[in-house]
Structures are given as structure tokens and as C-alpha cells.
């Protein structure tokens, strides 16, 4: 079973992603900020991380992505940026940090399932 980490500071969003993907036989992990996402990834080495960009604290989604992608232990995890902005600048920053793809809020759970399948099959 593939492991997917959802990193978002909003509990509702984490629950939404979990309820959406758990039905598809994925193991879902949660992190509520950048630091937690790094900690969980190091420990669990998820196949995919769905990373919110704007998170409170010193490490936001972009910075967490950069750290994870620069770490040989964690760089194997695929990262999809989850952004409510959908702004080119954020997407560019995410790609520069090493993210593989992005997904814009608000989203349809069915579309998220498709996206996750698509990314994991590559």
C-alpha cells in the first residue's frame, strides 16, 4: 500500500484529503506544518507528499520541499504542491524547490484521486 502524506495547517483540508484517498487504498499520513512534514517524511518515507504552500512557522511548504528534495533520504518522495493561490510565482518557486507537480484549491476529490494516480504511475 502506497503512503501519502498530506501537509496542511487546516485540519479540515487534511481530513478532506484523507477521506478522499483512503477509500482508494492509500495509507494517509498527516502533518500540520512544514517542520512536521519533514519529520514525518524522514520517518515514514511516503511515496507522495501533498504539500500546502502557505503554512505558519519558519518553514513553509516551499522551504520544506527544498529541504526534502536536498536530502538523499527524503528526495525520493514525489511532491505535489497544494496551493490556493494558483499563482505562477508560487508554482515556479515550488518547481525550483524540486516539486514534481501542483494542484490548486478548491478541488474536486475525484480530480485529486486522478492526479495522485497519474503521478504515482509515472
Amino acid at each position, binding site marked *: 500500500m502506497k503512503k501519502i502524506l498530506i501537509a496542511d*495547517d487546516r485540519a*479540515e483540508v487534511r481530513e478532506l484529503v484523507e477521506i478522499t484517498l483512503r477509500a482508494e487504498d492509500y495509507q494517509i499520513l498527516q502533518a500540520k506544518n512544514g517542520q512536521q512534514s519533514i519529520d514525518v517524511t524522514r520517518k515514514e518515507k511516503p511515496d507522495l507528499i501533498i504539500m*500546502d504552500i502557505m503554512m*505558519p512557522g519558519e518553514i513553509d511548504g516551499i522551504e520544506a520541499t527544498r529541504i526534502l528534495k536536498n536530502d538523499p533520504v527524503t528526495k525520493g518522495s514525489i511532491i505535489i504542491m497544494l496551493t490556493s*493561490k494558483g499563482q505562477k510565482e508560487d508554482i515556479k518557486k515550488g518547481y525550483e524547490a524540486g516539486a514534481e507537480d501542483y494542484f490548486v484549491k*478548491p478541488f474536486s*476529490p475525484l480530480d485529486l484521486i486522478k492526479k495522485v494516480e497519474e503521478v504515482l504511475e509515472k
Partner: protein
Amino acid sequence: MKDNKIKKDDEIKRLKERIRELEKAEAEHKQAEQALQKNTEKYRFISENTSSLIAVTTLDLMPKYIYISPSHKNIMGYSPEDLIGKKTMDFIHPEDKKKLLQLLTKYIGIKTRENIKKDKLLEGLTIEYRVKDKKGNWHCLESIINHYENKIIFISNDITERKRTDEELKKHHDNLEKLVKKRTFILEEKTKEINESQQALSLLLEDVNESRAELVAKTDELNISLKNTEDEKDKIDAILKSIGDGLIVTDLDNRIILMNHIAEDLLNIRLNEVLNKPLLSIITEENLRKKFDFTASKVKGGYQFDFELLGKNTKNSNIYDAKASVIKDKKDRAMGIIIVFRDVTQEREIDRLKSEFISTAAHELRTPLTSIQGFSEILKIRDDLDDEKKKRFLTYINNQAVNLGNIISDLLDISRIESGIGFSLKKEKCKINDCILRIFSIYKISHPNHSFYFYLPDKETEVFVDRVKMEQIIENILSNAVKYSPHGSEIRIKGKVLGNKYMVTLEDKGIGMTPEQVKRIYEKFFRGDSSDTATEGTGLGMSIVKYIIEAHKGNIWVESKLGKGTKVCFTIPISIRLEKDDKKKK
């Protein structure tokens, strides 16, 4: 017979008288002959010794020389033997022969009449004609011709020289005449020309005088115009120098010709120091030089650019929006370049905040929408959900819909405030304690992890406010207290009557704010931590709160310490005060 005798006597008398007459005539004749003899000798003497040419010819149509004076030898080269007996006409110039013959004919006529008066001398006639000398040269002679008996006497003078002199004289005279005529003609022409010129000159002079008068008038006009123009120029200069934007004017070679005080201050130079110097020579910073390195053709149609300059009293650089345009004259020819620039630092900051706001607003709208869209779709497609989950998801959807509504209200409120429309307050008598309690009871339920304390006066206080707006204020401040406080921390609210005011104090033990953040708390779009998206808000709440309180003629202030918590106080005027005991509730 008597008659015959008388006749005879008369005849005799007449014969005797005739004899006497004859005798007398013979005596006279003798006397005359003697006189003639004397005269002839006298004349011969004269003839032999005169320098005039004296010649005697026969009197007929073919005259021949009978006598020539010795002077002929000297003058004509002839001796008497050369001419005597020769035909006179052979020596006369062919053109003059006719003339001479005509004259001679007159004498021949006289000769005929001589029968009546034999020795009567025809009065001397003068003739000019040409005679050939012995060498064959022609001499012009002027002769006085006389006849005596059947002879012609020519008394001639050689006038060849005189004639020649005369002719030369005449020629000279003619030439002179011609010359004089020519000169006269030229003179006349010139005079005519001069007259014409003089006339033209007179007209011209009149014109000149008229023109001069016009010129004087025009000069006066011009002087007035010039003064007006100068006044206008001064005015324009003053306007240009006084406008709030920086202004630099250069000629086509980019040399500075005008600069106002703002530009002088910004570039830290004075116009009189840089007048006519190339604009680029006063700019040292390389990036700035690149921006100001333009030509008339480049700025044709307007050339807009930004540049940054270090502020005078700050360490931060200010942003300037510059526009260069070509100055054109009436004929549309480029004369120079005008550069106008103004400080847009603040505008840019506002733009930045606005764009940040739009971005934040979009995020804020998308956050509740993510829950609404996501959970509603889950509810729709999943039939394996238990009731508890279904209810929770519906609560999320409902809460986020309410939240969305609040965000939209905030956006509309601020948009009304911004556009100057503001709120229309629906004021009514309102028990302020009730307002506070109603909001708190809601928060107590929705935020069970926080501890809420009330300190409200027992005396029921009525205020004259827009109740809905008053509750919006309390809710807004309370939501901030909850948002920025950790779970379980205390949130206290106090109500107090101060004279004719009611003061509300709301205190939390949350994360607090830096003095800088406190200063900016009422700024629109300002949020303490913009990356904290878990904390909902647009950064508009406190702006709206302040606006509503001030619309009620109240005051608001904030005290805060980073890491310790925040205290928000506000007052509103009291309309009616009702005495009641203070209450303390938990």
C-alpha cells in the same frame, strides 16, 4: 520851205552838238586811255608781284589761257608757256567743269549785251573749284571772276590748305557734334532714367515713410506682445517650477535647460550649476544612467520608466515613475525632451498591498470553498459514510459557507469605506451587556478550549447604537483574541461606565504583537502573520472596527506585548443609563 529850213537848222544844230559831243568823247577817251595805260601798268605791277594767282582767258565756251601770273610757278608749278594757249577746262576737275561753264555762260551773255555798254565790268563773281597742278595734284582755288572786254580774269587764291583745314575742322566739328549728340542723347537718357528713378525714389520714399510708420506701430505692438510673452513665460516658468512633480527639460542634445525645485532636491543639484550640461553628466549611478540615456526618437510618443533613488532622510530608496516626452513646436518639430517624474513609493506600496489583498482574499475565499466543494462532493459520491461523519462534513460545509459570507461582508464593508460610501447606521436603544453576552455565548460553544470571563456592570446600560454593527465589532475583536491565543488561555471582557461613555476592554493572553505590528493594526489588509493561513482573516477586521466605532463617535486603542497578549479597548457614548448591580459571571 520854212519848215525845211527849220528842219535843216535843227539838223545842223544837232550835228554840231554831236560833233562837240564826239570831240568831248574823244578827249575823254584819250584821258581814259591814258588812265587805262596807267592802270594797266599798275595792274601788271600788282599782277606780277602778287601771291594770288591771276589768269586771263578768252571769253567763250572753250576758254583758253591768255595770261597767267608768275605766282603760278610757285603754287601750281606752271610757267606761262605751260598754259598760254591751252584750254582752261583741261585743267579743271571733272566735277567742277559744269559749275564753271555755267558761270562763264553768264559772262558770255554779258558779252552780247556789251554792244550797248562795252566796257562795263560785271561785278566780280566768286567760285570755288579744283585745278590740277603740274604734278597732277588737285588744288582748290577760290576765284573772283571778272571780265574785261572779251576776256575773263581769274583772281584766285589757293585755298587747298584752308579747305583741308576747314574739312578737318568740319570733320572734327561733325565728330564733336556727333559726340555731343551722342553724349546729349546719353545724357538725356540718363536724365530720363534719373527722372524716372527720382520718381520711383519718391514713391519708394513715400512707401518707406508709410512702412516706417507701420513699423513703428508694429514695434509698439511687438513690444507689448514681447512683454506679454515674457510675462507668460515667467508664469509658465513659475508654474513648471511649482508643480509637485519633478521636472527636467533638456534640448535635443540632452543638455539641461530647465529643472524645478523638486528635481533639484531629488538629484541634489542646482539648476544654475548644471545649466546646459548634458543630463547624463550629472547622473553617476550606472543603472540610472542607462534609464536616462534616451534620445528624442526613443521617447517619441512618450517613454515611461521607473527609477529608484535613495530617499533624503531614509535608508530606503524611493520609487519614481518618470515619463519623458518630446517637446514640439507649432510646426511639429522636436525641440527638446521634458521629463516629469513623481514619487510613487506610497502608491506602489498601496498597489503591492492591494495585490497582496487580492491574493489573500482569493486565498480566503478558496479556503472555505475547498471544504464546501470537497465535502459536498464526498457526500455526493460516497455512500459508505456513517451519520456522524455525514453530520460533521455538513457542519464543515455550513461553517465555511458562513465564513465565506463573513469574508464577503468584510470585503464589501471595506469597499464601501474605501469608496467613501461608508455605512448607514441604523441606531436604536440597545442594552450593551446583552450584545456582549450574546456574542460570548456563541464563542463559548464554538471555542470550548478557551476560557471566557465577563466583568460587566450590574447597572443595565443602554446605548444608542447600530446593534448589528456593535455586535460585529465585539465579534471581530473576540475572533482576533481567539485566533491569536493558544487553546485554554483566558479571554476576559470588561464593561465599565466612564462618565457619559461606556468602555469595553477585551484582553487575551495570546501571542501578542510587536510595537510595529500594533502601529499597523488598523491598516487595511494588514495581518500580523500573513503566512498563517490556518488563521482566517483578510486583514480588514480592525480597519472596519475602527471605522464603525468612530462612526459612533467612539474611540479605540490597543495595548499589546509580544508573547504576553493583547488588550483592545473602545468607548462609545451613552444615551441612557440604568442603575443596576454589577454582575460577575463565568
